[in-house]
């Protein structure tokens, strides 16, 4: 049974004289089929919100000097924190893959005289930048730059 949609959905500004049955949301929304993937994509926003809070808290704690830094490191070793970061990693990969899948079709046929490259090349470029950035960041964090 489909959920009720907003009562004004697709209503004309001046309603007709015939009584109408209220609109319903699409069948399967939000938990079935392709809608589930879309809702999962949207829900990852919560992960980023929580991640933002964690980072802000860590930055705040650094104000306490070395003890603060050690406190942050201890907190990051907590199994719940590790689990959350694994979840965040899965979320980022999921969002990246979906975004890269949809990105080529969001390109106008031309911007001024310039046409965007074909979808396959565009996707290849995006994945290359993603993988390259990940490798560079890994190298920097592993101490390779220092």
């Amino acid at each position, binding site marked *: 049974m489909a959920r009720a*949609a907003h009562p004004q959905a697709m209503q004309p*500004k001046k309603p007709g004289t015939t009584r109408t*049955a209220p609109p*319903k*949301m699409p*069948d399967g929304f939000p938990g079935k089929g392709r*809608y589930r993937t879309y809702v999962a994509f949207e829900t990852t926003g919560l992960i980023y919100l929580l991640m933002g809070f964690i980072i802000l808290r860590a930055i705040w704690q650094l104000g306490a000097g070395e003890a603060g830094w050690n406190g942050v490191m201890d907190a990051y070793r907590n199994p719940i924190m590790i689990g959350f970061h694994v979840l965040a990693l899965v979320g980022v990969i999921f969002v990246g893959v979906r975004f890269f899948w*949809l990105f080529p079709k*969001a390109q106008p046929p031309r911007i001024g005289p310039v046409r965007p490259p074909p979808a396959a090349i565009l996707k290849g470029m995006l994945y290359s930048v993603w993988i390259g950035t990940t490798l560079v960041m890994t190298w920097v964090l592993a101490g390779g730059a220092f």
Partner: protein
Amino acid sequence: MSDVQIKKFVVTRFDPDKDEVPRTDTFEVPCQSDWMVLDALNFIKDQLDGSLSYRWSCRMAVCGSCGMNVDGAPTLTCKSPLSSYGDTVEVTPLSNFPVIRDLVVELDGFMEKLKAVKPWIIRAKEKAVEEGPYRQSPEELEDFKQFSLCINCMLCYAACPVVGNEPDFIGPAAIALGYRYNLDSRDEGASERNAIFRGEGSVYSCSFANECSEVCPENVDPAAAINQAKLSGLVDWAASLVLPRGGKD
């Protein structure tokens, strides 16, 4: 003579004069193997219950009248073979629309949105007839041809979760048609339409569920049009900050 199979049709009924809420009726239909869903509805109407109301016209996926939900999915019933469904087929009116009667939905809201995006060629100054026709190269035609194939069947509206939640959202087909004119080399109204795309019910309400493109029977890809309109609207807005007459025109 093709094979006949009895299928059960569970069809939404709603009489605004009698019914408080929509209900369902079940019909057993002897379906031929080459029938479309619309053929079965026509059989019900002709042989079983003449009071069943639904829209249809061309029977060749051109007019866009016969859009309904079949087994929950927005479907052009004249284009959907019954052989791809099971023994029981559920037919309901398009989602996200108020229902006038049985399978007939209220279209005026859509017509208002369509008109709002000015889906026609806008010229700053019309050419005189003696100046000849507006010329367009095949490449320029290719830029927008895909978006001009829309038949206004409204399946995209029925599939979109944003349409159901945000009544002001202009919606997929209307944006695709408006954007089609923005891409037309003969048109000079892109800034005018982009202002509409950025206004009430803006293109930025779209969260790219992509369902509109999944259900489109003509492969118009309205999600592409909406998200391209977001980018070009942004470019146009930025240009309007630095150029006295804005972007394209």
